[in-house]
């Protein structure tokens, strides 16, 4: 369940008109996939939506409309690799890159 406040972004003043209104809910798709959970997002003026555990978005609303959404939220109890390990992909990629660079440097020196 994601309750959020997107009223910072939108119409006025001019600097509030940003892509954040779409970027902000977009991460929930990845969150649903990473953890295989259903997600419901309730926003005030921004995008409200439901995301199923496969990352498919349902009932995404338009901006700046008052309304009521209803749905049955499906989820799973799967414990994914990401759920168990957290954000290891980024640091792991950095370490591998450094190892490859070091290896390449030694190879060039030897050659």
């Amino acid at each position, binding site marked *: *369940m*994601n*309750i*959020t*406040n997107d*009223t*910072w972004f*939108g*119409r*006025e003043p001019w600097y*509030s008109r940003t892509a954040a209104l779409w970027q*902000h809910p977009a*991460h*929930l798709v990845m*969150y649903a996939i990473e*953890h295989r*959970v259903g997600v*419901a*997002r*309730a*926003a*005030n*003026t921004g995008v*409200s939506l439901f995301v199923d555990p496969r990352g498919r978005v349902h009932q995404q*609303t338009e901006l*700046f*409309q*008052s*309304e*009521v*959404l*209803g749905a049955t*939220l499906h*989820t799973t109890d799967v*414990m994914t690799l990401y*759920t168990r390990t*957290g*954000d290891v992909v980024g640091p792991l990629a950095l370490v591998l890159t450094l190892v490859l660079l070091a290896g390449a440097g030694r190879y060039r020196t030897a050659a």
Partner: protein
Amino acid sequence: MVRPNVAQPVRLDPESTIDSTLTALSRLAPSGSRKVAPELVVWPEATILASIEADGELQRRVVEIAERWRAPVLFGAMGQGSAGAHVAVPFNSAFLTDENGMLTDFRYDKHRLVPLVERVPFVPVAWVASAGRCLASTVGAASGRSGRPEAETDSGRSSASSLPLLHTCYGAGSREPIF
């Protein structure tokens, strides 16, 4: 899920924020009996920019709207807390009502605050709260829990046991249960 769609200038106007928000919520609440009640009704983060715990009249008005759903209502409002001795700070909190609209003792305080918007990096909350109360009241979310999130009371945990994970704003990167 209920979207009151109250614009930011209205929300930040102390004269109109409560009335405008409650009017919008009331307009979207069911007016008659419903054959099938939802299992849970959700209002957005910081729906009510006021401390609901300390305002009996505000509580009464919220109850009047929430009870029309005949279901628990999860919603954002300002919680009261403290940072250090004798320094009161508002929390960006989530509350839960029961099926009759009555406020339960469940409370979740947002713990991953947005830098600059909701917290000043590297500056203690107590200092911000004592030096800038006007900032805190304007933002409406000046502080949050540090470390692991937790419900406010033991009974709050039990009342929230039927709820799924709860994230405020941009969520969290883990699947750790917060209750």
